[in-house]
């Protein structure tokens, strides 16, 4: 450093400080203000027959499939995403996608949306494995996909990567990393359904599971940049929040109980569009440390799908609440294999049961053998087999139908379609079984 430079240094520093803070305050003051939630418009067709239809999103044997999510496309079709590979956390796991056409009731061909190498090349960072994907459709029709990527350690070391599509998912932009944590950007994962704010910004429920386990909410702009981040809970017990937006100001959050203890779904709530959230507390809805999904119907009824038992994931139910989540009642039992727990010691017996269930799910299946083969591969360990129906993901379409997908024996993604008329009838007919206080 020359003497002249040294003499000028303080003035250079003052100049830098003035320019930096002028730019900084300008950016801070341009930040979007807090705005109300936005509920999607729903127009239910008149005189529709009540329908509940079940099918599988895919039917080929072999891969481990898990963590499916859905998004409605511009033309009313439904696109699903899930991860698929030799096992959960394997380097060969990819994000797969397929489109369901409600007009003909069929799923189209699967395609790979993201893989490890492609993601790594796009984000210019080492990527070890991929995980949960969720998607949302912006007001301009652009699809945004968010998926978990891990560079360091296990799932607790996750971060989120995003990509977008302007052609309903046929092609995708290069992936971008979402920076959401100060410590090596570790431990932000997605599972819950994204939603929108009134200004078009995106609410993305996420969770943290390194040291602490708690729900968080990211507010993102259309480019995937994080505008804000807030806690939905604290401590070491809440995972995988799902936000049930009731109106512009009110929303309920349901969270998976991610620790030992009471094994109950956790809940939080806001009455000021998310400026403040109530402390998370346990509901009486049972939860075996498993994902929960849910949504708010236009009339305010809350729907949730969950494994409403304290251990295992072999029961899956649709439940509803008419009082903002204070009391819940079972609307429909989607799966229940509790009775078979003790009998499933023989993989041959298990395979027979799986085949029967597959045919009940979709009577048009020509060959149920792949379902048995894959389920035995992924769910039988040392001559002991089990059923797993997990990671449900529920959306409400613009026609008022509820579309549900979930993991079926870690081998397939099962799709359940509830028409608006079916929901209306069953919500009316269901016996009130209060289970929460």
């Amino acid at each position, binding site marked *: *450093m020359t003497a002249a430079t*040294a003499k000028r*240094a*303080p003035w250079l*520093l*003052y100049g*830098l*400080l003035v*320019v*930096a*803070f002028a*730019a*900084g*305050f*300008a*950016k*801070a*003051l341009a*930040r979007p203000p807090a705005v109300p939630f936005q509920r999607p418009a729903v127009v239910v067709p008149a005189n529709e027959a009540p329908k509940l239809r079940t099918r599988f999103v895919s039917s080929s044997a072999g891969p481990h499939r898990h963590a499916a999510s859905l998004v409605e496309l511009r033309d009313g079709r439904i696109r699903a995403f899930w991860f698929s590979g030799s096992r959960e956390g394997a380097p060969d796991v990819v994000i797969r996608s397929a489109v369901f056409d409600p007009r003909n009731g069929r799923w189209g061909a699967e395609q790979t949306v993201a893989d490890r*190498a492609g993601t*790594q*090349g796009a*984000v*210019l*960072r*080492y*990527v*070890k494995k991929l995980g949960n994907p969720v998607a949302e459709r912006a007001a301009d029709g652009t699809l945004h996909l968010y998926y978990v990527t891990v*560079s*360091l350690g296990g799932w607790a070391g996750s971060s989120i990567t995003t990509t977008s599509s302007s052609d309903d998912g046929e092609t995708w932009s*290069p992936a*971008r*990393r979402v*920076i959401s*944590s*100060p*410590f*090596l*950007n570790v*431990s932000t994962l997605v599972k819950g359904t994204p939603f929108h704010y009134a200004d078009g910004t995106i609410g993305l429920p996420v969770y*943290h599971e*390194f*040291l*602490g*386990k*708690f729900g968080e909410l990211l507010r993102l702009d259309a480019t995937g*940049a*994080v*505008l*804000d*981040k*807030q*806690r939905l809970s*604290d*401590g*070491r017990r809440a995972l995988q929040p799902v936000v049930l937006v009731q109106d512009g100001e009110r929303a309920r959050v349901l969270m998976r109980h991610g620790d030992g203890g009471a094994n109950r779904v956790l809940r939080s709530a806001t009455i000021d569009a998310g400026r403040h959230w109530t402390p998370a507390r346990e509901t009486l809805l049972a939860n075996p440390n498993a994902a929960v999904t849910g949504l708010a119907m236009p009339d305010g009824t809350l729907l949730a799908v969950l494994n409403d038992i304290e251990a295992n994931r072999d029961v899956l139910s649709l439940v509803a609440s008419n009082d903002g989540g204070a009391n819940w009642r079972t609307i429909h039992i989607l799966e229940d294999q509790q009775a078979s727990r003790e009998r499933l010691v023989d993989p041959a017996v298990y395979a027979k049961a799986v085949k029967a269930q597959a045919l009940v799910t979709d009577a048009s299946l020509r060959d149920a053998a792949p379902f048995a083969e894959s389920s035995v591969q992924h769910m039988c360990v040392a001559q002991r087999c089990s059923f797993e129906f997990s990671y449900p993901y529920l959306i409400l379409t613009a026609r008022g139908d509820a579309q549900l997908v979930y993991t079926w024996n870690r081998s397939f993604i099962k799709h359940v379609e509830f028409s608006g008329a079916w929901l209306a009838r069953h919500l009316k007919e269901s016996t009130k079984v209060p289970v929460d206080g």
Partner: protein
Amino acid sequence: MANFSDLTGLAGIALAAAAPSSMALARLPLSKRASILATGAVVVLLLIPFGGLPLAGYVRGIVGDLSISTLVVLGVVTGRRFGMLSPGVSPRRVGSLLFLVIAACMLYPLALGVGACDPYRLGYGEPWFLGLLLVFALGGIALRLPLVAASISLAVLAWAAGWYESGNLWDYLLDPMLAAYSVLALAFWLFRWFGFRLRAR
């Protein structure tokens, strides 16, 4: 084509390698010019793709983008090594270290879930947080800690310009590597200081 913020992130990792490289090369019988060239070669090597990803990309996958403060500190170390900065410009001033340790102790445990408060949220453009940083920067000038003032100002400027992928100001101010270095360096200084005091008795 790579995004601007990916390039800045990779460049930050590669440039950060210049400091340890210059220190290692100082042990070799090389001229100043040769040392500078060799250090530059290390930086370039880190940016050459191997298996579809530059070496700096593998490091970036683990540590993320380095904060502006880290780059300032490493820049000072490298500049001093090559005689571009006077020895008086040192990142190891106790005041600077103390400032960094306090910031790290405030940020990381809380952001990782100790308690219900998350100071990381302030980094998304909370005006009073910026005001607080302005006070610290002015304090750095008043206390003759120009590196503190320069690091804060450069971090704020880089954040305002969207230099990195992160939209959070904390990521420009501090990173875990700088925090770890500061804790160790301060502990080492305290150890020596107490040792000196005991010997003085």
